[in-house]
């Protein structure tokens, strides 16, 4: 994970929120913006810095979306995904 911190300064501008990923897009978690219980729970679910995440697909009506991380598939709505900052991987 050492390379994450080295690169983070250079790519800070490229950071996006998780909900902005296109379907099939990948990224690495940079931080969870929400504080309090919601942020804590998102971290406990595995959204911690350095974790690779893939947006697998969106629900038929556009929301929520399935994210693949840490060997699990988790659905989040845009409202929660917006709290998670990621660095997209090309």
């Amino acid at each position, binding site marked *: 994970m050492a390379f994450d911190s080295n690169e983070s300064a250079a790519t800070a501008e490229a950071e996006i929120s998780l909900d902005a990923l296109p379907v099939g897009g990948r990224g690495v978690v940079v931080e969870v913006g929400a504080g309090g219980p*919601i942020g*804590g*729970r998102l971290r406990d679910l*595995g959204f911690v810095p350095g974790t690779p995440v893939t947006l697998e697909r969106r629900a*038929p009506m556009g*929301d*929520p979306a399935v994210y693949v991380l840490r060997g*699990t598939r988790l659905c989040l709505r845009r409202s929660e995904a917006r709290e998670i900052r990621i660095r997209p991987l090309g």
Partner: protein
Amino acid sequence: MAEATAASPGGADALESGATAPLLGLIGSPNSGKTTLFNALTGLRARVGNYPGVTVERREGFATVGDARVRILDLPGTYSLTPISADEAVVSDVLAGEIEGLDAPDGLVIVADANSLDRSLLFVAQALRLGRPACLVLTMMDELRARGGDIDCERLANALGIPVIPVVGHRGLGLDALRKRLAESPDWEAPSILPPESAEERAGWARSVLESVRSEPSEGNRRTEAIDRIVLHPLLGSLLFVVVMTTFFQLIFTVAAPLMDAIDAGVGALAGFAREVLPAGFAADLLADGVIAGVGSVVIFLPQIVLLFTLLYFLEDSGYMARAAFVIDRVMARVGLEGRAFVALLSSYACAVPGIMAARTVPSPRHRLVTILVAPLMTCSARLPVYAILIAAFVPVQTVALGLGLQGLVLLTLYLAGTLSALLLAALLRRFVAPGEGMPFYLELPPYRVPPIKLVASQVWGAASAFLKRAGTIILAASIILWVLLNFPKTEVPADTPPERAAAVALEQSAAGRLGHAVEPLIAPLGFDWKIGVGLVASLAAREVIVATLAQIYATAEEDEISLREALQQDRDPRTGELVFDLATVASLLVFFVFALQCVSTLAVMRRETASLRWPAFSFVSLLAIAYGASFVTYRVVHALTT
């Protein structure tokens, strides 16, 4: 019901040795295979109860290893030991020994799915930080190996400082080794080095542990990926959702109906038998119409509850329910609820009692409360006989357009009115009564699995026994009270009364009859007379009872629907000579039944599922107010239009 539990051999036995056997707490995330493991260890002899103040199920049982016994507490599945709701706090409270009458567990059995160890280790780290003697059970190792991965359990044990035991719970593999470990639990040691506290550092710790013990699987779960290509497909997935939910609903309705009729007939036969055996009089009446009919009014719910929960847990344990919630979540989000509330509301079309119980699958307490509160507005099957007789009697048979009959359209309108008002009320409640999120929305899509029959059976049994113990007693008591109201005080029926009028006269003189007269001024603005008042009182037992009560008042044979229909059509007010059931009154009564929470069983189960008297009281009063207002307006408007 309480006697049955106490008398079972396991129960009495368990209580005696409970004091000496070490207590182990089973903890892990949802979908970790924890409950399957619990069932495999305790052999379905679990005692099911509730934690004080919340509606979280408390399940415990014993595992026997040779001569040794350990007591095992199956704690609710959770992704984190930092609670964000009262329900979740149960786990941390139990672990801290803060639940009255329950000591803190002597040791922890942490359960994790080997396939998602990456995520589970974050939870394991939290559990280890409790500094308790513990062991880790890795489930579904067979799946991981089938995917070309593996975990070196010995190395993992060294890294964590606690024993690690791989099992395949539903096939019983590894259970002997686990039992042996559990028997040694008094000798377990607490981990000597604790993982770091912050989530970031924990993630780093998890990464370094994983690197040394796991060979990554070479492929994903092929079966699940293949199924999800269809189930989560935008078009096919939506179609499948409609098909599954329609089938689900149809099964609850059609399969349960004959069973319920059979129970009804059985109860009737039993009551008849009691009357034959006992001398006519109070004792025979009490036993036949009070007790036997009262017990019948509880048991009648069982087919629907057992069927609903069998289907529900089958869908849940197979992995489909999470997909269904994913597909429909957007719709439910519009009214401030979430995907998992959909099934509870759908079930309420059959009956609000199992519907409200199905709301247990909604994890957020606020969402669950709102789901429970709006469930009674979904048009349940008990309203159907009421709608049917009123529509048949007062809505003319005529075709409106496109071959649609007017009677059918009225029925459809009533269903739509119930559904739309449930959704509207949900939105209002989420805004004003239970606002805010409190919990983030998240939903795990577990791999598809064939649900172990034992697991489904134990969950269904848990739901049915909870219903009988907690709600059944209230329903029984309420049915008997209503029976007393409808039959006492007994009056001398004048000798010149025609025999077919005797029952009607007795009913008018009963407490319920007097209550009907007493509330007449209150319900007169809705176009209701005292007879409908009595019917409304009686319908508290179950909505369709109003039909039987009206039949009794009009002294027609209950089974003979046509004669009741005619009696209703011809009844005139003795003072004014006007029809009692004019169009305005009928419309008003139908609207009243759309909204009013006329059902003690629903109130009883609501009381149980919210662990409070406040919410059933709130629901009863507010829905009564809505019903009154809507009926009043309907009566006035229709009256103005038709005269």
